[in-house]
C-alpha cells in the first residue's frame, strides 16, 4: 500500500463528490453488484468519472445499483435522460466508457453499437 498515492485520493474524491450534486439532465446508473464488479464495473465507473470531469460535463448525475439481472453481459450501465428515455449499455470496458461519455453525454448521440435491448419510455 502506497500512502502517497492514497493522499492524492483526498483531493480527487472531494472534487468528484462536489460534481455529483443537484438535478441533472443525464443520470448514469452503474450496475455494481458482485457480478458487475467482477466483470470490471469499477474501472468502467472510474474511467467515466474521469472523462466526465475532463470534459467538464456538469449535467450528469452518477448513481449505482445492485444486480440488474444482466449478469451475462456485465459491466452494464443505464443512462436515464430527464425526458424519461433510458438506454442500457453492456459489455463495457474503459474504451466503451470513454466513447459513451463523448457521444451520448456530451453530444446527446446514442452509441448504438454498445446499446442493448429496446429503448424504454416511462411517462
Amino acid at each position, binding site marked *: 500500500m502506497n*500512502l502517497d498515492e492514497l493522499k492524492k*485520493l483526498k483531493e480527487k474524491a472531494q472534487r468528484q463528490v462536489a460534481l*455529483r450534486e443537484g438535478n441533472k439532465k443525464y443520470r448514469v446508473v452503474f450496475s455494481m453488484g*458482485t457480478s458487475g*464488479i467482477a466483470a470490471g464495473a469499477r474501472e468502467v*465507473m*472510474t474511467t467515466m468519472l474521469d472523462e466526465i470531469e475532463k470534459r467538464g460535463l456538469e449535467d450528469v448525475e452518477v*448513481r*449505482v445499483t*445492485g444486480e440488474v439481472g444482466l449478469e451475462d453481459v456485465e459491466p452494464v450501465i443505464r443512462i436515464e435522460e430527464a425526458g424519461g428515455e433510458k438506454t442500457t449499455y453492456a459489455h463495457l470496458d474503459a474504451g466503451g466508457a470513454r466513447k459513451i461519455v463523448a457521444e451520448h453525454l456530451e453530444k446527446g448521440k446514442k452509441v448504438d453499437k454498445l446499446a442493448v435491448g429496446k429503448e424504454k419510455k416511462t411517462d
Partner: protein
Amino acid sequence: MFEELSLHILDIAMNSLAAGARNIQIAVIESVKHDWLIIRIRDNGRGMDGQTLKRVLARSFTSKSSRKKPIGLGLALLRQSSEMCGGTFDIRSVQGRGTSITASMRLSHVDRPPLGDLNATILALCASNEAVEVQLHCRSDEGTFYFSSQEGRPHEPRRTQKTQREGATASRAT
C-alpha cells in the same frame, strides 16, 4: 473470484449502501512484522436479525428480495478468500444499528490476492452517493492514513454527525 481485495471491499461496501448506511468505515491494516492483513468494513445501515445473519454465513445464501439487505455471493467470496489465506472471517450485525465485517489473511500467503487499486474503490463509493460518508483508515508499518469523503466540505449536514455516533454505538454493542 475477485482478483483484487479492493474489489471485495467495494462489493461489501455496496451492501452497506443498499442497507441504507449513512456512514461506511473501511479499515485496512497491514503488518509485515506480524504477517497479517486485516480488512474491516463497518456501516450504520439497517443491519440484520439473527436469522438472516445465520443464513448469510451459509455458503450459498443469496437474497433476491430487495426489501431485505441484498447479499449475494459477495460475503461468501470474501470468506473463501480469507480462509484460503490462513485468516478468519467474522460478521456481526445488530438490527437497526449496522453491520461490521472483518476479514483477515496472512500477508505472505501465496494465494493472497493483491490489495489492488484501493483508490478506485473509494472513488467509486464516494461517487455512488455523495450523502454517505465514506471513511478510510489505513495502517501499515509505514504509517497511518485517514480519509473521509465529508472532510472539508462546507455544508456538512448535522445528520451525518448524528449517524456517526449511532455507528459508534452499534460497533460497541456488537
